[in-house]
């Protein structure tokens, strides 16, 4: 059954992501099994699960990189099935794997991605320099990306994903492999973006980071097992940390 979505304009809603029965099968294997949830606008939504639980597949479907087998979703107010192009304009994405070009400079990387999102040249230059300023990298714009440390690269990826001012940003394990100080700085960036009304959809394996989220969900075997605020989940499972919730659920 299809919801009566309006075709071209973004649906005005309290939620920036609404997912109903989203499923992805690869042959016999069901990677994502009828998951349903909502994410409010400006919320920091933690998407947890063990390796292979189906998180990345779910994110790739929400970014319209992968066609769902069944189910439906509204992302940034657009229908995933009929308006993938509009969704792409309104979302940002950053993956665990650093994915900027090593042999281009910081400025060239940002200019490339800004341009393909259709930002005008002058506007783009202003945005690039203001975000480099925020990251304290303004004097590094001509540095090749290959020669900067991983922590900087991750922050730079985030800034690049935010250049076109998306409504939602998907972060797939953005802090894996970086030191605790950079992780803290990174989360400051996330908070700042969220306070500007950007919805943050983040996956992580760091349970302390899960505590920073407004709400979290836990996936196991392709299914969404739990969803709620960190406090709710801890009370529900009668434990004192998200880590214990996670271990209890994933082991079950």
């Amino acid at each position, binding site marked *: 059954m299809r919801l009566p979505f309006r075709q071209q304009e973004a649906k005005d809603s309290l939620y920036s992501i609404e997912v109903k029965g989203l499923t992805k099968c690869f042959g016999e294997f069901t990677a994502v099994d009828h998951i349903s949830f909502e994410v409010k606008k400006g919320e920091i939504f933690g998407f947890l699960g063990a390796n292979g639980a189906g998180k990345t597949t779910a994110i790739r479907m929400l970014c319209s990189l992968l066609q769902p087998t069944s189910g439906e979703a509204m992302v940034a107010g657009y229908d995933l099935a009929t308006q993938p192009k509009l969704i792409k304009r309104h979302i940002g994405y950053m993956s665990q794997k650093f994915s900027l070009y090593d*042999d281009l400079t910081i400025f060239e990387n940002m200019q490339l991605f800004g341009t393909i999102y259709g930002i005008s040249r002058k506007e783009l230059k202003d945005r690039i320099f203001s975000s480099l300023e925020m990251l304290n990298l303004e004097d590094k714009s001509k540095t090749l990306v290959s020669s900067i440390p991983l922590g900087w690269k991750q922050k730079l990826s985030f800034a690049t994903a935010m250049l076109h001012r998306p409504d939602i940003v998907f972060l797939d394990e953005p802090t894996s492999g970086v030191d605790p100080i950079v992780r803290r700085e990174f989360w400051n960036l996330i908070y700042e973006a969220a306070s500007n009304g950007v919805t943050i959809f983040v996956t992580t394996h760091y349970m302390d980071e899960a505590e920073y989220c407004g709400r979290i969900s836990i996936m196991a075997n392709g299914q969404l097992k739990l969803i709620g605020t960190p406090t709710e989940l801890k009370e529900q499972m009668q434990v004192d940390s998200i880590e214990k919730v996670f271990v209890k659920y994933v082991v079950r």
Partner: protein
Amino acid sequence: MKELRQILRKEFTHIFRDRITLFLVLAIPIMLVLLFGFTISTDIHHATISVLDLANDSQSKTLVENITASGYFEVVSYPKSESEIDHDFKDKNIKLAIIIPNNFEEQLTTDKFVTIQIISDVSDMNVASILNNYVKAILHDFTDEYNGTATVPIELCTQMMYNPEANSVYMFVPGIITLIMIIVTALMSSITLAREVETGTMRMLLIAPVKKAWVVVGKVIPYMILSFISTITIIVISVVVFQMPIKGSVWLLLLVCVIFMLTSAAFGTAISSLVKTQIDAMMITMMGLFLPTALLSGFLFPIDNMPYFFQILANVFPGKWFIIAIKDVMLKGSGFMDIWLYMLILFLMAAVLMTLSLIRLDKRR
């Protein structure tokens, strides 16, 4: 269009920053042509031979003169009998002996049929067959001069027609162009596309609201331009240094090259759509395209001499059609109407593969 321009700009930046690859891509074609042209040449000049002239009349002397004047042969000995020829092979290291029979002139005028015996040292088969062909060509010319009343037993070698000196550079140039285009266009674009998949940047591009076709086209065009530059370099060197003729239209030749570039690019794109890593892209392009093209396109081994299965298989690889087309244009002076079929085959290969790989890329989204 702005997006395409940006992707092109990015790709050129990659290329110009990677100086070593750029140098190799531009220098290798030049090195290859010069190498093939000067060293791996199968032309033989001044091959040492013996002539046993049993007739010793005016016609036989003319024939021997023709043979020496050709430049291919140097007569090092005039044995008096057949037994001496054997010594010449061993002691004077001759490659070939020619025996002109008794009463050569008489037979030529009255019997209208003469048998000339050639004894070759076939320990090097290639040299032997090339020298045999030279002798046949000289005999052919000789009978022509003799106003065609006599028939000297001659097998016609069709290749001799368009490359009378059997100049091997002419044979290698189309092959080198083919291999270079496959390396620069197919190999480089399959590797560079696979690199984007491997490093994850492809996902960043596909997640952006940019047409997938632009991503592929933007990545492939720079390598097509590079291979076009290489192709022109090869052609210029072969014309200037090796006096290779371009009997047909230069524009038609360039058009054929552009079409083959599209085909190579399409093969590269198709291969990259099947693989996830640069190594796989490289291995498949080398083993699945480069090697079969080198072996089956008729550039190293004549297709007609292959087992039937390989003759059929050769049709699948674009190199065969391209080599036929450019040889025809350069050596025979063929026009568009003569080679349109080959061009169509190449173009269809390009269109089908490009469509399939875009569809596959679209499924990945």
